[in-house]
């Protein structure tokens, strides 16, 4: 009898794992990181690697006193306010104002895909006959910096709607990407940011996945400018000698969907500065 019960219990566990939804996944991640970093309060995860790297943090706090991303916010505000050639502007596409970063990424039932903030901004441009912006470098970061700044303090709350199975499929797809090993080095996102979070790789400490999406766009000293989340995805793929996929392509959008759900409950604090 005992044996049967144990077997049943084991079966139950496997079943939960196989069908775990976003909230179960997030709880598992949090449980894992709490065991690894018991003294780090939950809200600290929004600060990325500086939640777990006290030395890097001192440096970072000094940098944040004169934020290197400030000019980009100003440039973004000018973009937000400047009318397009047809007289309309971002304001017409987003009537609730620029404090909207918490609304993305979201499942768009009509388009049948995950819509991220950069994609929504470009769809606004295109709908008004303007040229879309490049997704990794350049002016998209200005408008993103402005929207991020206006959205500070809003709480991440990604939902995977139950009434459209394609939404869960997109989430699952992003989750699978996260756990899939790629490249010549045969690493997954999880190998570094979950299994080995807190360890040092060359000069950097590996940050936890919870909190990975709070601070975008990021001013990176190595870049010497502000860059997008998908630029970072490319970089992390390249580092393991995998060919990066297309910024804002389906794979990276679904990955962002999953990643953002893992940060549900954290406050947005972008733009931010990193090494």
């Amino acid at each position, binding site marked *: 009898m005992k044996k049967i019960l144990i077997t049943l219990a084991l079966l139950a*566990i496997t079943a939960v794992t196989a069908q775990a939804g976003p909230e179960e996944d997030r709880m*598992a991640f949090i449980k894992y990181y709490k065991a690894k970093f018991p003294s780090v309060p939950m809200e600290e995860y929004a600060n990325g690697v500086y939640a777990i790297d006290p030395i890097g943090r001192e440096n970072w706090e000094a940098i944040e006193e004169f934020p290197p991303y400030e000019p980009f916010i100003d440039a973004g505000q000018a973009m937000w306010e400047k009318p397009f050639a047809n007289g309309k502007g971002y304001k017409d596409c987003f009537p609730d104002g620029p404090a909207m970063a918490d609304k993305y990424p979201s499942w768009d039932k009509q388009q049948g895909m995950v819509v991220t903030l950069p994609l929504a901004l470009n769809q606004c441009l295109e709908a008004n006959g303007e040229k879309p912006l490049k997704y990794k470098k350049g002016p998209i970061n200005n408008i993103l910096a402005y929207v991020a700044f206006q959205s500070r303090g809003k709480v991440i709350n990604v939902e995977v709607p139950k009434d459209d199975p394609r939404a869960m499929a997109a989430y699952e797809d992003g989750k*699978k990407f996260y*756990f*899939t090993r790629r490249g010549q080095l045969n690493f997954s996102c*999880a190998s570094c940011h979950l299994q080995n979070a807190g360890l040092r790789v060359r000069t950097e400490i590996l940050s936890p996945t919870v909190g990975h999406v709070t601070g975008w766009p990021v001013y990176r000293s190595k870049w010497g400018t502000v860059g997008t989340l998908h630029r970072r995805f490319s970089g992390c793929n390249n580092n393991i000698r995998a060919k990066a996929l297309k910024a804002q392509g389906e794979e990276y959008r679904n990955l962002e969907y999953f990643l953002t759900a893992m940060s549900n409950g954290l406050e947005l604090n972008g733009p931010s500065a990193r090494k």
Partner: protein
Amino acid sequence: MKIKTVLAMLVLAFGLLAGSAAVLAGGMKADAAMAADAIAKAEAARKQAASVNGEWRDTGKFIKQAQDAAKAGEYDKAVKLAKKAEAEGRLGYEQQVSQSELKIPSYLKY
């Protein structure tokens, strides 16, 4: 690492050794046709890896270098680079196919 991947790597490594050994032993020199053939195979393997989002970072670069070498008449070099690219393409493909099912690592407890 997956057994299959390891096997594929061994097979490839052995194949590469055997291939180059044959070229060396016979004192055989690669010619333009051999280079073109190796490059075509490499490109096919790269595309197959890309079809499952498994292309590695430098595979395309090696193919480009092989093409340049072939153009310069350096056929041995071209074949060597193309074989390297082909091996990468196969490994990248196999790497993705062997993980077609999502497996949550055991250290993550639900």
